Every structure is written in structure tokens, then in C-alpha cells.
């Protein structure tokens, strides 16, 4: 890639104004990579970061449960399982917006490429599968910045199970949707839950238009596809 020189433009939100956005043009790019645990998100993001940095771009990461303000409290809440669903949704939303306002927007103003390891879509899907009103959830995240591109690494649930076991020899309680009582059997619960999440993503794809990437293929193919999308986006002239 030649000398990076990103054209600045006004970034949009999903409908509601964000109090902290301000007027300055955001020069960087925001790319969101979505997918279940085991879909290869982290591996691909790491490789993309290295490739971008080698090409001369400054890269910043964003993810769920990472804000210094709330990360510990969310972890505690997850473990104690004391909080109701709306409260959990709002805790995650607070964490999300905290990162958005304090780290992402400043980074975008400074011209960074921001790679988001999951974005609002996972948060919304989790809420909706748990019975949240879709309209309420959409409103909650309507002040978020619209990413320049969203990639959904779609993986067969059967494949996800195997990859999760390879990593940890155990399935995560929340990623198996055990709080939903889908099955007493964790393995079965995981498959059902991931299926529900994928169907929700399918519906969101129609609304938000993200790029579905077949993540069942080998890593090199996936990475090539992601890089070609990113290259195209980075070459876009000022909007």
C-alpha cells in the first residue's frame, strides 16, 4: 500500500446525537469485527494490526468490557450472577460508550485505524436473545458511531464448539446461554444459543448491511479477504 493519507469526513451515529462527539472531522477509520468466541476474531485482528502497522498506519483496539471504569465491575457482575438483564445490558452499554468517548473518538480524530473486537451488534444480539425489546436495544446504541465497515466471521456452531474446547477444554457459561435455561446440558445449550445469536445476526445484517465472512475456511483465506476489504475502505475519498 502506498503512503497512507486518510481523508477526513464527518462520522455518523445510528440516529441519536452523541453529546460528546463535537464538530471536528474524524480522520481515522473504524472497523468492527464480529463473531462468536472461536470464530477467529482475535487472531485475525492481531494479524490485521500487524499488517496495518507495517503499512504505516497507527492502530487502536476497542472491545467489550475494557473500559477502566467498569471492566472489573462487569466481571464481578458476571461471576456473581446477581444482576437482572436490563441492568447487565446497561452496564455493558456504559462500558461501550465509555470507550467510545474516551478512547475511540480521540483516536479517530488523530487519524488512527480503530479495530473493534466486537461492536454494538454482539451486545444487541445478546440482549435480544435474552428477551430485550429490539426497539429499546436499538435506541440504547443509537448514539454509537457507525463503523466504516463491519465484518461478521460466521462459523458453524459445531465448529465453534471444537475451537472453544481446543482453547479451554470448557465452554463459557454465558457463551453457552446457560442463564436462559435452554437445556440442562451445557453442550446442547451452547449449540442452541449460538444458533439463536446467528439468526439474530442474520436479521441485523439486513438492517445494517455488514459483510459476512465465511470463517470456516482456513486462516490465510479469511485474512486475505479482510485485507482486501480494508484496502478498499482506506482508499475511499472524502465523503
Amino acid at each position, binding site marked *: 500500500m502506498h503512503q497512507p493519507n486518510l481523508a477526513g469526513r464527518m462520522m455518523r451515529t445510528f440516529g441519536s446525537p*452523541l453529546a460528546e462527539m463535537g464538530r471536528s472531522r474524524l480522520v481515522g477509520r473504524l472497523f468492527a469485527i464480529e463473531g462468536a468466541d472461536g470464530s477467529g476474531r482475535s487472531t485475525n485482528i492481531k494479524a490485521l494490526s500487524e499488517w496495518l502497522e507495517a503499512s504505516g498506519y497507527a492502530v487502536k483496539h476497542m472491545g467489550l468490557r475494557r473500559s477502566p471504569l467498569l471492566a472489573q465491575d462487569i466481571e464481578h457482575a458476571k461471576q456473581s450472577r446477581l444482576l437482572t438483564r436490563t441492568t447487565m445490558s446497561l452496564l455493558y452499554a456504559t462500558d461501550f460508550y465509555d470507550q467510545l468517548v474516551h478512547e475511540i473518538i480521540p483516536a479517530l480524530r488523530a487519524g488512527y485505524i480503530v479495530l473493534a473486537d466486537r461492536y454494538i451488534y454482539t451486545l444487541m444480539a445478546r440482549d435480544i436473545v435474552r428477551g430485550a425489546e429490539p426497539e429499546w436495544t436499538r435506541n440504547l446504541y443509537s448514539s454509537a458511531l457507525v463503523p466504516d465497515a463491519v465484518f461478521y466471521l460466521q462459523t458453524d456452531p459445531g465448529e465453534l464448539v471444537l475451537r472453544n474446547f481446543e482453547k479451554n477444554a470448557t465452554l463459557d457459561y454465558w457463551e453457552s446461554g446457560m442463564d436462559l435455561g435452554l437445556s440442562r446440558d451445557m453442550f446442547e445449550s451452547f449449540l442452541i444459543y449460538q444458533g439463536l445469536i446467528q439468526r439474530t445476526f442474520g436479521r441485523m445484517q439486513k438492517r445494517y448491511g455488514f459483510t459476512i465472512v465465511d470463517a470456516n475456511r482456513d486462516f490465510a483465506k479469511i485474512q486475505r479477504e479482510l485485507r482486501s476489504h480494508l484496502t478498499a475502505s482506506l482508499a475511499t475519498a472524502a465523503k
Partner: protein
Amino acid sequence: MVSKRPKYPGKLIAVEGLDGSGKSTQIYLVKRWLELSGARVFFTEWNSSSLVKPSTSKGKMSRLLTPTTFSLIHATDFADRYERQIFPLLQAGYIVLADRYIFTAFARDVVRGVDFDWVERLYSFAVQPDVTLYFRAPLEVALGRILDGRPELKYHEAGMDLGLSPDPYESFRIFQGRILEQYEMLAPRYHFTTLDATRDIHEQQAEVRRILRQKFRLSDFKKTKGRRAAA
């Protein structure tokens, strides 16, 4: 708009007003009245969830909270109290007294620059109170009661994050003035019952009890009656 309320046997009574309006004194007296009458009553106040409090305090101390996160962290606190306590107790037939309700969020968040429609929809999971008592006092009266003796004003309490003035007292003055404007807008929209908060405590309480007696029969909520079946 806040959603239509489903039927439940309890009653939700909220009080709103500026700091220094005397609303907390009034709701406390209501609580005592109801308790001493043997009613099933529960009291909740703003920003009091024990599960969320550590984050709120941390954020406020380090001044990390900006309008949207400030709004959301208080919404989180409210959601916890609402879903674990307020709503289940209403379903069980309690009188729930709320010192400040969602309207406090609307007023404070909007003054901080948060979009009104967004925050209104954010709280749409919560029911409308059966009565919202708005203790209206002129700004100078409310300010006088708070600032008498020059107490220490905390950063966010004084609205210092808004950059209204380098002096906390001046900042507080302007901040409260803007909150008052919001309340005046919210009052008709949410059918507040407005009371003159400049009168003496006893007179106000008498009016409050008169209003409440019209809204429900105290005997319906007596503990000795045993559990009411869900409506």
C-alpha cells in the same frame, strides 16, 4: 413516551424537585405515616444501588464521567433498583416511595447535553408513577436552603463538568436554574402534581396526605391483611 403501565396491586409514589425543595423531608414523613399505619411500604432513593455504586463513585471521583456515561451509569443504578426491588414490590402490592425517579435523569441528562428522546426511550422499561409529587420552589429559595452555611459542593453536584463557572457556588446556581427549566417542561408532559414548596413543612405534608388518600385506600395496603392476590 414512557410505556403504558401494566396492572399491579401496588402504588408507586415519586417525588421530584430541586435540591433544597424539601421533597426528601416530605417523602420521609409520608414513609413514617404509612409505616406507623402498618402499611407495606418500601423506600428507594436515587443513585443508591449497592451493586453499581462502586463504579459510580469511582467515575465521579476521577471525573471520568462525561454526559453519556454519566447518564448510563445512573440508568444502570436505576435499572438494578427497579428490576430487583421497585417493580417486584409493586407486583406484591407494596406502596413504593421513590425519592427522585426517572424524571431526575431526564432533567439532569438533558442539561448535560444528552438527547431528550434518547434518554426518554432509555427509561421506557420503567412504569409511570401512580402519582408524581413535584415540589416547586423558586430557585433562590431552594438555593438558599442548600447553600446556607456554605457547605462543600461536590464536583458533579455543582455541575462543574459543564464549565458554567470556575466558582462552584456560581456553577451550582446556574446548573440548578437549568434543571428547574427542565422540570417546568416535564411537569405537564408527565402529569406531575405540583405543590408549593415554600409553605411550612406541616402544611405541605397535610396536602400531600390529602392527595394520597384520594389515590388509594390505606387499608388495602395494611400488612395484617395478608398477601393480596395479583390483580
